[in-house]
């Protein structure tokens, strides 16, 4: 049986993972997963708990090296690249557990993220708070995430949903081309979910997005392609309809959600 390919043969994938495998001792967390992300497309990865989705994202972002396989970003082989280097090359990532700077204001959170593009560490006499480049990018990112009225609030005091928005904003502050989003909807109420989905729809146009999510309704609404993982391997991949009607998927999932 040939393994379902989550990647197309087209040459303009912004991010491509080929036969990615990750072993922890005897356990195979990710088993020969290939997948690609195209510009203008939201590619969702779903699966049961322990399916290997988090490990896969960590391999793509550069936080864990694969045991086998390669990762290509914008045509370059980045398998050996560190996470900061991949980020500089245009890869952005949000985390399942909110990874922000709670003691800084919302604006400073975004500004510091944007500063990665204009680090200028040698200009020690200059006030970072007046850095127009990073401030501009920060305000834009915060605006697209809907946080413009909250710029001066300490990030730690935001509501959970607002923190998840900030998580995305920080991702956007570095103007990446590829977005790896790990469960951005986690713990969100209905209204916040709507807002986030609307944001994802607008982001789709200029980015390639990988979305790992548990919320099936949301996934089927917003994804252009869906890949299903079980026990570290891809069992199905294709358009939402194809996946919905796939016998393998229905067998693996407990009767659909």
């Amino acid at each position: 049986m040939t393994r379902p390919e989550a990647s197309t043969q087209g040459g303009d994938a912004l991010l491509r993972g080929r036969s990615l495998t990750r072993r922890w001792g005897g356990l195979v967390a990710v088993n020969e997963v290939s997948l690609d992300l195209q510009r203008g497309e939201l590619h969702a990865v779903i699966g049961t708990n322990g399916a290997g989705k988090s490990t896969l994202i960590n391999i793509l972002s550069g936080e864990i090296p694969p045991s086998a396989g390669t990762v290509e970003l914008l045509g370059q082989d980045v398998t050996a690249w560190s996470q900061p280097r991949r980020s500089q090359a245009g890869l952005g990532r949000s985390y399942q557990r909110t990874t922000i700077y709670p003691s800084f204001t919302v604006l400073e959170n975004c500004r510091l993220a944007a500063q990665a593009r204009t680090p200028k560490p040698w200009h020690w006499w200059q006030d970072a708070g007046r850095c127009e480049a990073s401030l501009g990018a920060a305000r834009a990112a915060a605006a697209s995430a809907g946080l413009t009225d909250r710029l001066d609030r300490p990030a730690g005091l935001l509501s959970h949903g607002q923190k998840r928005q900030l998580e995305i904003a920080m991702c956007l502050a570095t103007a990446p081309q590829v977005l790896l989003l790990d469960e951005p909807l986690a713990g969100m109420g209905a209204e916040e979910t709507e807002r986030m989905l609307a944001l994802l729809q607008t982001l789709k146009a200029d980015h390639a997005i990988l979305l790992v999510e548990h919320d099936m309704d949301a996934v089927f609404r917003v994804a252009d392609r869906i890949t299903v993982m079980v026990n570290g391997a891809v069992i199905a991949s294709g358009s939402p309809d194809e996946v919905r009607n796939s016998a393998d998927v229905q067998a693996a999932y407990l009767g659909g959600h």
Partner: protein
Amino acid sequence: MQNDIRSKAVFVGLAFMALAVYPLMAGNFGVDLVTKIMVYAIFALSLELLVGGTGLVCFGHAAFFGIGAYATVLLSPESDPGSVLVLLAAAVLGAGLYALAVGALSLRTKGVYFIMVTLAFAQMAYYVVHDTPLGGGTDGIYLNVKPVLGPIDLDGPLTLYFFTLGTLVGVFGLLALVSRSRFGRALAGIRVNEQRMRATGFSTYPYKLAAFTLSGALAGLAGFLFAVKDGFVNPEMMSWHLSGSVLIMIILGGIGHLRGALIGAFAFALLQEFFKSEAIFGAFAKHWHLGLGLTIIASVALLPRGLVGVPQQLRDRLIGRPSRRAETTEGQDDKA
């Protein structure tokens, strides 16, 4: 927010002015004591950059302090005054180089292991001066003639006092600028959430290494001043007890604030004088470590934000509402 910065700037300004006029009222003992405290304050400021600024708890800072002191004495001519510029540069460079080497090896470790490694490397430096003839052994080495900077002779206590005060103001100003700079903000980001820094594209290791090296170099500067003041160096200047003491200074004063290092150095020195005082404790005064140890435990337990945080703690108690202020780049200006 503006009032905040202003009140902190006023506090620091007043403190420096008080230090400037202090010699008018104090005798020789007082001038000597406060000179020592100011040197400790520079030492504490250097560590604050590392612990409060970057979140790296270093338990081996005395090594850099000691290297600065030893470099000063070892490179001073036998019977002529050395040049302040040369000796100061040597102290700063020597300490900075060792900091670069130690940092390069230690910064790959994290958390408790980093604390252990830095302590161990400081012990290494201690043994070099303690066991080998290089450092004059346990007897130490004397600085026969104090260095000069053109017409300024650091031999006079008042000259040295104002030279030290000037250096203190300079170091404070430098670190205030650094903490609001992009470099300083990056260090703060590394302290709060290194993972996110890396995810946004910062290579965090070079930043940490730079902070470690700068911190060590500034400690070496404090070492230079201490050697000039006392005219004598011995291995105890690199002892891990001194590393512990300087950590206590910054936590006593308040981590995360430059003025905390100032306040902490003063508070610690005064506490030491207090517990050592035979006038108060009589014969028991020789066991002054006991009082100091208990005070350290009490202050860490009861004043987690240090003396700097006392007005806030009192306010919280009286009003009953915890008010939290965020760190902005503006707020960082008042990190002083």
